[in-house]
């Protein structure tokens, strides 16, 4: 009896927290809100070269889902390899760093222990766990624990896996993030942060979709970049692996987005 009551309560919570409301109401983010439900565990994969893109996408999706305050857990190894977090840069992504708590742990085991504690803290909006390398301890069991804790407490957990290969996990969704060429501004200056995102896996949903998005810090929203082949015509095609695959998904989601793309470059 008690168990079924608990189950009902849990399902209710998931149902109510599952779809964060978007202040803007623009349809662009639908893909993200469907994919990245609150109170769940999500995995974001990025190669070592794209570490900043992975972290940037994580921050941006926290902001898009309005899931602050954030606790960011990293290991000393990631601080050594990836550089330290730069608050000014985070502010420029749109994050309110006064609410950010950074936890620096010694190794992977203490990373998971600290994560288990933080995942139970109702006061948090998002728990960001950053790990570098293969991190074999973040396995199916560990992710299942985190997932259960997230469902119980309502904390969204983003597991940022840099330089790791996807392994079986209990995460609700899995994303692959890579840097994407931005739309340059005047005088050939690099533009807003742009990401090449692939939804590798989604529990109970369609997967294998790809988007190319740009982060609008002022509106806290992802804009689809209209696929402008001419802009890339001069580049080597190797820089855009699988460009052909992405077009279909891009077009479907970006039809209305194309209208208000600002031309700055």
């Amino acid at each position: 009896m008690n168990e079924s009551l608990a189950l009902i309560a849990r399902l209710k919570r998931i149902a109510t927290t599952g779809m964060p409301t978007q202040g803007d109401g623009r349809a662009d983010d639908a893909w993200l809100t469907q994919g990245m439900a609150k109170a769940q565990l999500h995995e974001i994969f990025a190669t070592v070269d794209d570490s900043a893109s992975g972290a940037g996408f994580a921050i941006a999706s926290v902001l898009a889902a309005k899931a602050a305050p954030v606790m960011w857990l990293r290991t000393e190894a990631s601080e050594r390899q990836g550089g330290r977090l730069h608050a000014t840069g985070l502010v420029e992504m749109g994050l309110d760093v006064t609410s950010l708590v950074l936890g620096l742990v010694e190794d992977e085991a203490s990373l998971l222990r600290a994560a288990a504690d933080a995942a139970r803290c109702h006061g948090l909006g998002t728990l960001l766990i950053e790990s570098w390398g293969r991190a074999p301890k973040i396995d199916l069991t560990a992710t299942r624990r985190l997932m259960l804790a997230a469902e119980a407490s309502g904390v969204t957990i983003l597991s940022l896996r840099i330089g790791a290969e996807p392994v079986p996990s209990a995460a609700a969704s899995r994303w692959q993030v890579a840097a994407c060429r931005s739309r340059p501004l005047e005088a050939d200056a690099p533009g807003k942060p742009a990401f090449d995102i692939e939804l590798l896996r989604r529990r109970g949903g369609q997967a294998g979709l790809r988007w190319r998005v740009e982060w609008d810090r002022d509106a806290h929203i992802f804009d689809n970049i209209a696929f402008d082949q001419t802009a890339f015509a001069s580049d080597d095609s190797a820089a855009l692996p699988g460009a052909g695959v992405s077009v279909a998904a891009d077009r479907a989601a970006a039809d209305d987005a194309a209208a208000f793309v600002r031309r700055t470059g």
Partner: protein
Amino acid sequence: MRPHLFVGRAETPIAFVETVSGGVRLKALDREAVRAGLQPGLTLADARARVPELEVYEHDAHADHEWLERLADGCQRYTPSVALDEPDGLILDIAGCVHEFEGERRLAADLEERLARRGLLVRHAFGDTPDTARALARYAGAPAPDEKRAVKRLPVAALGLDEDATTALSRAGLKTVGDVMARPLATIAARFGEEAAMMIRRLDGSVKGPIVARRTVAKIGVERRFAKPIARTEYALEMLAELATEAAVQLADRHEGGRRWEARLFRADGLVQRLRIETGQPTRDVALLMRLFRERIDSLADPLDPGFGYDLVRLDVALAEKLDASQLKLEGGEAQKGEVAQLVDQLGTRLGRTRVRRFSARDSHIPEQAELMLPAAEAPAPTPWTAPETGEPPLRPIYLFDPPQPIESMMAEVPDGPPHRFRWRRTVHDVAHSEGPERIAGEWWRRQDIPTRDYYRIEDRRGRRFWIFRHGLYSEMEAPRWYLHGVFA
């Protein structure tokens, strides 16, 4: 001192020596050695000639001090106010503390018994003031019916003056403290200095010297004594929880909450184990405290070992701050904040306080010095960060390398322009877009020779955005080097 070495071997005289200005001299002696006629200050050669069987050890003042500190810790089972009387004395303020022992004699007996187990010979004395007790314990006078007269019968050496003054006093025919006291204070002060007069006033009780306690007495302290030592850590923790509840009630009466807590577990064999915790905000939440204590125990290098059991558990609130009765906030805003603060305390207790951090803005134009990472538990009120300009892309990276990583510019660049191709981490990057330079000068008001940095925001052909700089202008040096300072999202 290694007293355990000497337990039950009263026969051999023992001496501790130290090397003073080229010669090895006796520093401290045991009872047997004194009985054999030795005294501190003698050279080792002389002493050996007189007492050939003398056992000699190197004197280690530091170890002695440490041992005395440990004894003082242990003595805190009797009173919170314990002072060191270097090199070999302890002063305990037992006012109001004897009720546990039905009188001071029983307390002294208990103390002597415990110390005897450690192989220590103790001489103790009671006094109305710390100075009389100290004098009575250190110097032997003729027997007397009460404290006042006992002090008077002490030798003049008990005044603790320097050797010349002591000799002068005895030459003047003043053999005991009482003799000196009988004289007008003014003449003593004129002849032997203000110090001597002060000491006399202290010994006759008209001035009370302070006890300089090793630690400040906590505002709130609660304790439990056990007739039978408890050997299970779990049970000791339950006791601690009860004590925390008591302390919380006392704190609530004062409208305060504790920020720094110290639990001490006194083992029956004299060892004291301390557990210190700190919270970012004043609290009276027992469940939270116990969680933090458990975290602390988990993080100990050696696990908590009850040994033969604890016979006293004490909890002190070392720092308390204003905390009014908590009120549930309907919006949940305050409650949420509190939960994050609790998490910060919990992780800080386990990982170390400095590892859980918050960012704080700092007034500097040097990028790596423009912000501080402070322990989250003690971070100041958040400072507003400069809001980024609307419509601009991020101008600062999210990861910053400290120190910046050298890169190799592989193609000649135009002066005051970024490289067109560079190598970083064994990968070649072709620059597609760039913006700059953003010139950041060194802090020339501190040092003159710091080269200027010219920063460029660049994007390579694969869409990766970097923050690179040239260290020095071409006018400043011949071949300035390039560095990669950070990566953008």
